[in-house]
């Protein structure tokens, strides 16, 4: 049967080579959940104890969470969630998530003390030049989660942050205090107050540019606002980075399901959001 030819071997593998010096930089581990509570009608805050590899996560990176199965549903794949906070000293990572479907419904069921399988850190985070003095962070929805650790890192660099937060209603704005705690100035705009339209945000941004407070744009969560920043970035030659989303399977660049179009050197190219991003050059991103 199948083993007929096994009698002689070509040793294709050089087993004599010394073992490489390899250490893992992405782990999937069952961390203890320390907190999992609603922060408003839409978002929940999750804190998980993790090991040293996960605790090396930086702003803009993400984790893939293996969500428990809610009754009658079987989310099969992991769910990507941006790093919302990390404390290497305490070995904790934080997430901010919205319940939208089976996976996040399952997440919402976890109680402190339960274990959650988190995999990360994944992807390319923000590239934060320590020489920057003033940056602008523009976020909407879960995008604020992604920008929160950026504000913290900027502060550590001595970079000042002006954050523009967009939401449907004032009560759905999250993390405002967190950003202020990180020393950021926060400007909030909302649909219900009629302040979140691109024209109004553009006026605010032009003001910040005029004040010399926009040496770079960092944005996440709204392609409308991204386009505004792209226009201004081109007009004023301002650098920028954007964190993108796309449906994911592997999170490690293996499967090519998370590709998006990017505009690079006059060409449209596919990039894997999980591997080449999720943070991309603002000027290359397409909505």
């Amino acid at each position, binding site marked *: 049967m199948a083993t007929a030819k*096994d009698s002689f071997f070509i040793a294709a*593998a050089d087993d004599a080579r010394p073992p490489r010096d390899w250490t893992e930089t992405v782990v999937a581990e069952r961390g203890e959940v320390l907190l999992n509570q609603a922060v408003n009608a839409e978002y929940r805050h999750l804190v998980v104890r993790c090991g040293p590899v996960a605790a090396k996560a930086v702003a803009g990176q993400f984790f893939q969470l*293996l969500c428990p199965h809610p009754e009658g549903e079987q989310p099969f794949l992991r769910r990507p969630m941006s790093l919302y906070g990390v404390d290497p000293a305490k070995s904790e990572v934080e997430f901010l998530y919205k319940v939208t479907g089976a996976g996040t419904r399952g997440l919402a069921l976890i109680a402190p003390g339960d274990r959650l399988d988190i995999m990360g850190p994944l992807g390319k985070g923000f590239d934060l030049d320590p020489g920057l003095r003033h940056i602008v962070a523009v976020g909407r929805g879960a995008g604020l989660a992604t920008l929160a650790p950026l504000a913290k890192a900027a502060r550590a660099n001595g970079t000042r942050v002006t954050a523009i937060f967009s939401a449907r209603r004032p009560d759905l704005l999250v993390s405002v205090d967190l950003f202020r705690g990180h020393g950021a100035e926060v400007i909030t705009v909302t649909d219900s107050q009629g302040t979140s339209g691109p024209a109004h945000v553009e006026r605010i941004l032009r003001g910040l540019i005029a004040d010399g407070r926009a040496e770079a744009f960092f944005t996440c969560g709204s392609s409308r606002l991204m386009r505004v920043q792209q226009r201004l970035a081109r007009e004023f030659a301002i650098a920028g980075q954007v964190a993108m989303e796309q449906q994911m399977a592997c999170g490690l660049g293996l499967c*090519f399901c998370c590709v998006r179009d990017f505009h690079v050197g006059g060409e449209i190219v596919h990039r894997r959001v999980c591997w080449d991003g999720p943070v991309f050059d603002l000027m290359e991103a397409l909505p």
Partner: protein
Amino acid sequence: MTVDLAVGIGGLRLANPVMPASGTFAEGLDKAVDFDRLGAFVTKTITRELRTGNPLPRVVERPGGLINSIGIPSKGVPYFLAHTLPYYGRFRPPLVVSISAPTAEGFASLAAELTRPGIAAIEANISCPNIEEDGKAFAMRAASTEAVVRQLRAATSLPLWVKLTPNTGDLPEVARAAEAAGADALVVANTILAMAIDLQTFRPSLGSVMGGLSGPAVKPIVLRQVFQCAQAVDIPVIGCGGISTAEDAIEYLLAGASAVQVGTATFVQPAAMTTIIDGIGRFCEKRDIARVADLIGAVVTEEADQPDLAWVAPAE
């Protein structure tokens, strides 16, 4: 007791029987898995021409699996030779390169071009449409399988693995045709053609309407196919379909697989392959099985009763 994990695939020795499935493995996994522990590397299928792959969405999950229609985004052969090949040269496991082409000649010329140092075997993914016939995949029929494998065999001196499709009703015939035409091993199998519809939009969940099902849901089906193929041919069969645990892998070995490929499971647990390798070792140790190769085809069917498969399509 130290268990000997090595297996042989048509003259190629693998340190252990576990390797990735094509299209579910790339450089990025190095962050989570010590590549030197794998039995082999298997690349994403490459083609000669540049391709962007299928429209989005490319993946939809189902209970116990996922349907994908990634297609074959390919940067072409020069890119592969300049970047991918040297990258894998740094590691111990042998490199198996998966290839595809729309014609038998295209397969052969690609295989010839890849017959070079650093490549340990060619895996011919013949589950792709044969544009010279009616567009049916080569692997759907014995005749088209035999034709493409014969040309491949003439084109390369490398070990030739042929990856079959589970969508054919003639699997044992197709397997025998591949063997007759000179394949050194068979990979059984690719994904099972499937579909999902979004009840909100009434549209197919995948951009390309249909896609391939993989993951635990397909395991009982592909396990049966591996059993049938291992009975039908004398060359080694590599099992591939829904393997997530060491137990799954052992079931495949017992059914007649000489090695296994792990695909979708890696998306859920990135260290799935090394966990499986460790688990196979422990299983053998506990049972006093000295060589994992002793598991191959060790399923005991002699005393099983004769089936009355009156309403199930029989083996062949």
